[in-house]
């Protein structure tokens, strides 16, 4: 039995296709999202600042902009036309020009700053205008001698911890990696074994079928463990993701999910006849789950009727649990419905696989 497990692990790591889905594919996503949304990334993009005024107000505005994490402020460009050129070449998202004498205490001093923007870059425009309006409103109040605005928003976050989109998507990538590698590798692997008659050959030996299947599952769990470790390490230390939950709970949830996805792989393998069909069926199942299961965006923004269906997809409750653990440090037992859905799927898949999956034909 030990020999079978060791051989299975050896094969798992020698299989380049599987290694790609298991390690490279999720890494690709981690880096992609890490660079876009990770700690070092700025949501507002690059903004060119040309400050021609040296009044305290202008200096203060420049400092506030530079201190702000929403934009990356570039003061290297000093010429308006050069700024326009940079925006057209997509090297900068917008340019802010503070005219000479802006904020000076004299009546003919300019009262307006100029923004050159790219209409295609709506996010930057919204954030920049919002930021400037807020700043100038406060400035106006101060100039008028009023202490702060009368009406304001009292923001209460459901989660008081510091979080960003990358933290949200990292948990998604974790689930995606487990799902893709497990479903595809079991479905394709088992079909290939059947095509090569390895399953049949094993039936002629005294080796018990369920030992064989246990070996296949365990060896992949070793790979899953590695996947989770790599994704978390890179997310945490390269892109400074925030991980608040208990690391053991995260691993336990991930491996539970991996078992479910492997069983799904067995279900596919028990229905398809060829390796190609297995590949197709596995892709047909994983791609919709990737988008509808909440990997990249919260699924409660979907139309209500669609949400009421997709919230039960196998990956959805898994991601909900992993997220509440990673982001809030909550226990998965806080919302036992998620666990119930997962175990429900496990029971269903196990039943179908036991009923349909055969090592050899009749």
């Amino acid at each position, binding site marked *: 039995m030990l*020999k*079978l497990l060791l*051989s299975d692990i*050896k*094969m798992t790591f*020698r*299989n380049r296709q599987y290694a790609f889905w298991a390690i490279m594919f999720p890494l690709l996503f981690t880096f992609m999202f890490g660079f876009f949304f990770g700690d070092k990334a700025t949501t507002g993009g690059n903004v060119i600042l040309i400050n021609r005024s040296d009044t305290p107000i202008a200096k203060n505005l420049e400092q506030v902009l530079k201190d702000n994490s929403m934009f990356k402020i570039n003061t290297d460009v000093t010429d308006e036309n050069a700024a326009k050129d940079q925006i057209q070449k997509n090297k900068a998202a917008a340019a802010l020009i503070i005219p000479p004498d802006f904020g000076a205490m004299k009546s003919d001093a300019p009262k307006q700053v100029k923004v050159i923007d790219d209409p295609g870059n709506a996010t930057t425009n919204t954030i920049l205008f919002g930021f400037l309006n807020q700043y100038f409103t406060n400035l106006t109040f101060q100039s008028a001698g009023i202490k702060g605005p009368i009406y304001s928003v009292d923001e209460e976050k459901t989660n008081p911890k510091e979080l960003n989109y990358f933290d949200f998507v990292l948990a998604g990538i974790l689930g995606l990696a487990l799902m893709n590698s497990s479903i595809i590798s079991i479905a394709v692997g088992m079909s*290939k074994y059947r095509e*090569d*008659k*390895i399953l*049949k*050959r*094993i*039936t*002629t*030996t*005294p*080796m018990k079928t369920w030992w064989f299947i246990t070996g296949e599952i365990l060896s992949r769990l070793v790979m899953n463990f590695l996947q989770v470790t790599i994704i978390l390490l890179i997310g945490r230390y390269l892109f400074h993701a925030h991980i608040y939950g208990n690391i053991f709970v995260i691993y336990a949830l991930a491996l539970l999910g991996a078992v479910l996805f492997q069983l799904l792989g067995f279900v596919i393998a028990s229905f398809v006849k060829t390796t190609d069909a297995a590949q197709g069926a596995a892709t047909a199942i994983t791609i919709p789950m990737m988008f509808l299961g909440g990997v990249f965006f919260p699924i409660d923004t979907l139309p209500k009727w669609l949400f009421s269906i997709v919230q039960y997809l196998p990956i959805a409750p898994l991601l909900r649990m992993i997220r509440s653990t990673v982001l809030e440090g909550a226990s998965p037992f806080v919302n036992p419905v998620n666990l119930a859905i997962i175990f429900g799927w496990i029971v269903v898949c196990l039943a179908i696989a036991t009923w349909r999956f055969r090592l*050899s*034909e*009749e």
Partner: protein
Amino acid sequence: MEKVIEVKDLVKKYGNFTAVDGISFDVNQGEIFGLLGENGAGKTTTLEMIEGLRKLSSGQITVLGQDVSKGPKNETKEKIGVQLQSSAYYQFLTLKEIIDLFGSFYQKSLPADQLLKIVDLLDKTNSMVGNLSGGQKQRFSIVASLVNDPEIVFLDEPTTGLDPLARRNLWDLITEIKKKGKTIILTTHYMEEAEVLCDRIAIMDKGKILKMGETHKLIEGTKNPYKISFITEKLSQDQYGNLAKLGQIENLAGKSNHFEMHLKTQVNLNKAVDIIQKQNPESLTVGRASLEDLFIELTGRAIKE
């Protein structure tokens, strides 16, 4: 002689289709028993029912004294070695690793080196199956079925798709296995292979056994056990007529100077040879009928590849 496999009234049905239609045969200890027939004759289905890979519709199978009609017990599986038709092995393990792994499934097993040496694959010990040639793969597949030092070896079409030289190599290998005292049951659709290798054969067609017995006796028992093949430029109408009276004569494959005769008796054979020799033939071969002749006689057709 001790019977190691006994098959009685074996039937396998798939819906309305009867793949194996009530066949019975025994395999004796130490012999090579061949199931001969075309693709679809039911050979593999029969073999796989004995191996425990397919369920029986009805009938009884006994292997080494154990009833395996409802699937073999581990005790039986320990003593049989199976090579499956056109099977492959694990892609990502070396030959040695595969043999060690399969060996670990059994209580007793032979070391990988010893097995690979038999099939001359010692230098490929650390190669993957994908790097072997067709003949090497097949040799490996056969030797992998010997990993538990079995008493009975099942070989399903062991030489299909191989070139003639690789096929002969495999015949030597199978003969070696027989010499170790093992019983071999194999399927084939190559007449020559069955003739060379098998002590006894059962000719199968459409799920039934048409004829069974010792290979040489079956051939001798054909209606025309003698065969003459000769090449001569001139053969007059008269002489052709005389020959035709002694047995069946035909032009071979459209060559006007190449003839083949099938004869019933030794007397006729002698007479025909006399007539032909007077023609000073370029070539004259006298032989006995082959298994192929018997097969054509039984089924009315030759096996197409």
